[in-house]
């Protein structure tokens, strides 16, 4: 559907406001959108954030560097490990620590598992948002396997706090390799079923195709990143551009679709899951064995300066910007969260669409509200 024109004749019509959220099934948390509506057509979107704002950046100014990491779990909780890794990498970069190879490989595997888990959850919720309720449970079944793997090694299922500056918290569980190897063929076998169930469905295709188009220029101008930008043809995968951890040792494709609509973003994520499996498969067989912790001081003090570390979370480009004045606490920490910029894109993408489409667009943008609010 391109544009909707209403012939009102002599009848008077009036635009009205619709509060979507903070309690609304489609906002995936406590995001509030103030929609200006004309009938069912959305004329304007104004986001109202901050319902889960905890000022993590301010809290970081009063914490030590090791202690920051557990706060980042609570931002984008679906890619908690990648957030941890980002901070750890920023600190390591500032201290110029070379971490053991084993740590790099572990972090990469964990990061990719987290990405798959996040995309699986997104897929389930995506189905829910367009009305196919069964996808949710199928996705959760498969995500549960990752959560179990995480629980075994990290001791937590969602907020792992697994990376530390210079290493990881625990060594891998003896079962880890076995269970990951069980998981890879399992996911490979269910993703075709997912495609049959949802992707190929004519209703779903009609709901997705040509809806919420984000052009290449707009994607860059909006600061979109991750699958959202890659669905618009922007090559922006930090794993390819500036490989961190063990990503420089693996061979994988960057998934890019150029249509820029809902279906492109959907396809990017579906294909990314398979690519992540590829990455894990390449690393899982020979994890080096050279310790899980580089030598760090008990009290970490960063040298004076400014350090930026960008990593690719499941949602996009997370930037950790640390300004240090040489004390044990950072002077300023800024988390440039991918969801924040992607939300900006929604404001324009949603205009002129029906309310059901706005829900679908929001779903393909894959918000995690704590990540937006921080």
């Amino acid at each position: 559907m391109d544009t909707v024109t209403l012939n009102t004749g002599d009848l008077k019509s009036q635009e009205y406001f619709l509060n979507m959220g903070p309690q609304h099934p489609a906002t995936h948390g406590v995001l509030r959108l103030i929609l200006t509506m004309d009938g069912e057509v959305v004329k304007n979107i104004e986001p109202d954030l901050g319902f889960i704002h905890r000022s993590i950046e301010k809290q970081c100014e009063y914490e030590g560097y090791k202690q920051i990491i557990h706060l980042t779990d609570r931002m984008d909780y679906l890619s908690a490990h990648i957030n941890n890794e980002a901070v750890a990498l920023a600190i390591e970069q500032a201290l110029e620590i070379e971490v053991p190879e084993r740590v790099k490989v572990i972090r990469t595997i964990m990061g990719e598992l987290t990405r798959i888990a996040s995309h699986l959850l997104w897929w389930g919720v995506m189905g829910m948002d367009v009305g196919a309720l069964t996808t949710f449970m199928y996705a959760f079944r498969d995500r549960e396997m990752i959560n179990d793997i995480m629980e075994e090694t990290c001791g937590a299922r969602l907020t792992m706090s697994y990376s530390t500056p210079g290493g990881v918290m625990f060594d891998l569980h003896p079962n880890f390799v076995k269970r990951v190897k069980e998981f890879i063929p399992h996911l490979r076998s269910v993703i075709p079923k997912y495609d049959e169930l949802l992707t190929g469905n004519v209703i779903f295709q009609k709901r997705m195709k040509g809806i919420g188009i984000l052009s290449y220029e707009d994607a860059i101008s909006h600061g979109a990143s991750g699958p959202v930008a890659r669905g618009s043809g922007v090559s922006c995968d930090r794993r390819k551009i500036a490989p961190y951890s063990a990503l420089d040792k693996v061979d994988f494709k960057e998934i890019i679709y150029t249509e820029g609509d809902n279906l492109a973003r959907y396809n990017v994520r579906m294909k990314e899951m398979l690519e992540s499996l590829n990455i894990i498969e390449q690393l899982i067989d020979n994890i080096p064995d050279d310790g899980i912790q580089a030598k760090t001081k008990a009290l970490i003090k960063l040298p004076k300066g400014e350090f930026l570390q960008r990593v690719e979370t499941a949602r996009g480009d997370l930037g950790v910007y640390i300004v240090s004045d040489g004390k044990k606490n950072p002077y300023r920490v800024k988390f440039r969260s991918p969801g924040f910029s992607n939300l900006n894109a929604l404001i324009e993408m949603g205009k002129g669409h029906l309310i059901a489409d706005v829900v679908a667009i929001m779903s393909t943008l894959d918000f995690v509200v704590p990540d937006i609010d921080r």
Partner: protein
Amino acid sequence: MSYIGNILGGIKTLLTGMKVTGGYFFPSVIGRKYTITRQYPDEPAIVADRFKGEVVMWHNENNEHRCTGCQACEIACPNGSIEIIWDRVLNEETGKKVKVIDQHIYHLGMCTMCNLCIQACPTNAIMWSTNFHNSTYDRSQLTKVLNKPGSKLMAGVEE
């Protein structure tokens, strides 16, 4: 022609979707084959042995613990979940004043299970328990004293 093709193609995709759900439904009804529900109180929950449930202090059978009251965990904790109330007591054998904990207070309600305290502990006095039955009716019940009443420091830990 494409009109009819559209309809038939659409119906075909719908049927493939139904095939997937049906493929899960019928074996589930007949043999519970794909059912993943774990009926928790009847079936035991599977908890990994590393699961970070809550921080506990290890005591041996003589009601002795390994905490010297060094406060490393208190400093390591990012959000002040641990408070240690300690005292200096004269050790009669050596004649020196020694730090002895009175209460090792742990606010489970504030704890984010980040593992920093346990990593920081030089004497391995505190550890994770996999207990996850942590809900209470009152927030104050989440504030726990980890050392048992009357417990004292295990001999030989100080060195």
